């Protein structure tokens, strides 16, 4: 087990080192202007600058709170509507075409309306995150409810379980593995659009940090911001994966436990 972790860590270190070396070689070749391709040392300097003067923490806090408000709203709306629509197939057959048309539209496309409807400040970024998270959660919940094994419903019916208990005791837990999958996908896309949203309409946050660095022609800080966003996104992904396995274990459907 320890060897495994060590091996994995050494692979991460090797792949990142190779990337940095190639990057440094490209800088050494002298074919790129320093403002177009800052050196690794310069970017690391920028990163520590952002950490030390507290800029990163300030923007990170703002981004994270927007992210969680938007993401939680999309969870509540997506699961609630998904349960209702997944259960009522007739209504869903009318709603589905609309959803399928709206789903491929990038949340950023809504930006002009979002500003008109929700003003400026935190709201536009939150709304964009909400839109980004909503569709994957809605669709996975609908399909989760639609795929509940009929035998569970038959058993519950036999034991005299009626609505709304049926929903909470049988349908929601039975649909949970698919819903969790949707939550995971939604988290990724919400994080992507958080940054995009903050780039077009905010005066704070990680997206704004990048725009601000560009405006002051600090390409090293732009890259530093990109690296932070990537690492934080990765950490969030790991966090939800951790929660997912935890809940799956509680549900007794851990993949390792299957025999």
């Amino acid at each position, binding site marked *: 087990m320890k060897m495994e972790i060590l091996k994995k860590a050494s692979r991460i270190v090797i792949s990142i080192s190779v990337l940095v070396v190639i990057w440094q070689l490209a800088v050494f070749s002298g074919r790129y202007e320093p403002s177009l391709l800052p050196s690794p040392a310069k970017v690391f300097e920028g990163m520590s600058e952002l950490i030390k003067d507290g800029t990163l923490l300030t923007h990170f806090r703002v981004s994270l709170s927007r992210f969680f408000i938007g993401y939680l709203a999309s969870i509540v709306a997506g699961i609630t509507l998904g349960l209702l629509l997944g259960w009522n197939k007739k209504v869903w057959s009318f709603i589905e075409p609309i959803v399928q048309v709206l789903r491929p539209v990038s949340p950023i496309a809504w930006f002009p309306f979002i500003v008109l409807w929700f003003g400026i400040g935190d709201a536009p970024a939150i709304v964009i995150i909400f839109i980004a998270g909503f569709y994957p959660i809605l669709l996975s919940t609908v399909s989760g409810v639609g795929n509940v094994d009929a035998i569970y419903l038959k058993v519950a019916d036999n034991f005299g379980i009626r609505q709304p208990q049926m929903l909470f005791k049988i349908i929601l*837990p039975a649909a949970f593995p698919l819903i969790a999958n949707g939550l995971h996908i939604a988290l990724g896309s919400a994080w992507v659009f958080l940054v995009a949203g903050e780039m077009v309409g905010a005066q704070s946050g990680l997206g704004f940090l990048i725009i601000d660095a560009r405006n002051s022609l600090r390409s090293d800080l732009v890259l530093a911001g990109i690296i932070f966003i990537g690492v934080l996104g990765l950490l969030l992904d790991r966090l939800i994966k951790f929660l997912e396995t935890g809940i799956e274990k509680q549900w007794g459907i851990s993949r390792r436990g299957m025999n």
Partner: protein
Amino acid sequence: MYISIEGASREYFFKGRRTVSLEKVNLEIQKGEFICLLGPSGCGKTTLLNLIAGFDRPTSGVVKINGEVVTKPSVNRITIFQNYGLLPWRSVLRNVELGLESKKISKKERSKIAEEYIELVGLSAYKKHHPAQLSGGMQQRVALARALAVDPEILLMDEPLGALDAMTRMTMQDEIERLWQEKKKTIIFVTHDIEEAVFLADRIVIMTPSPGKVKSVIDVPLARKRDRTGSDFLKIRDRVFAEFELKASDKTEYYL
């Protein structure tokens, strides 16, 4: 009569074509009887069980229990399925509690009853386990405990041992017989295994396919617990074989 099935038929329409999965079944069952519905696939035995359970309704004829026409499922008649129907996200204990949750009893009382029935099927050591961690035989014991915990009058079993290996099957047959004798339930048990039917049933209802109907009813007047290799057992088994024309009919009355 306790359960009476009067001229019950079930037809399905699929793409405009009519298929009769059960044709004019008449059957009377007494309280406490162990009945096996025996036949090959497509003979309508599961359809008949679903009609008694109330999951399905006959297109003509009626199913009556205690003189009342069956129209919907009831906690008084619990069905046990081949794939157990256990909820994988609940522990054994919580699975057994399921049927007690719609009754007005306290949480403490509920788990006390559940534990009692888990004990009855010999799984006390596994009450915190989840179904996926148990073997098929153990899962079916959980399903039995869950069904018995709500104290139904009738147990309907739809090929409950069909997914088990031969050895486990026999152990479970012993177990089901023991529970039936101990709890005095009426059991209607669907199977396609002739020896299983001869071992368990008071009466075997022989069913044949296309359209599904009852061909005959065979009494099994053997004392319990039955010896699977005894000569009386084999004689009845042979009679059932003959009913299905799986054996050249033998005109001699006695063997030497």
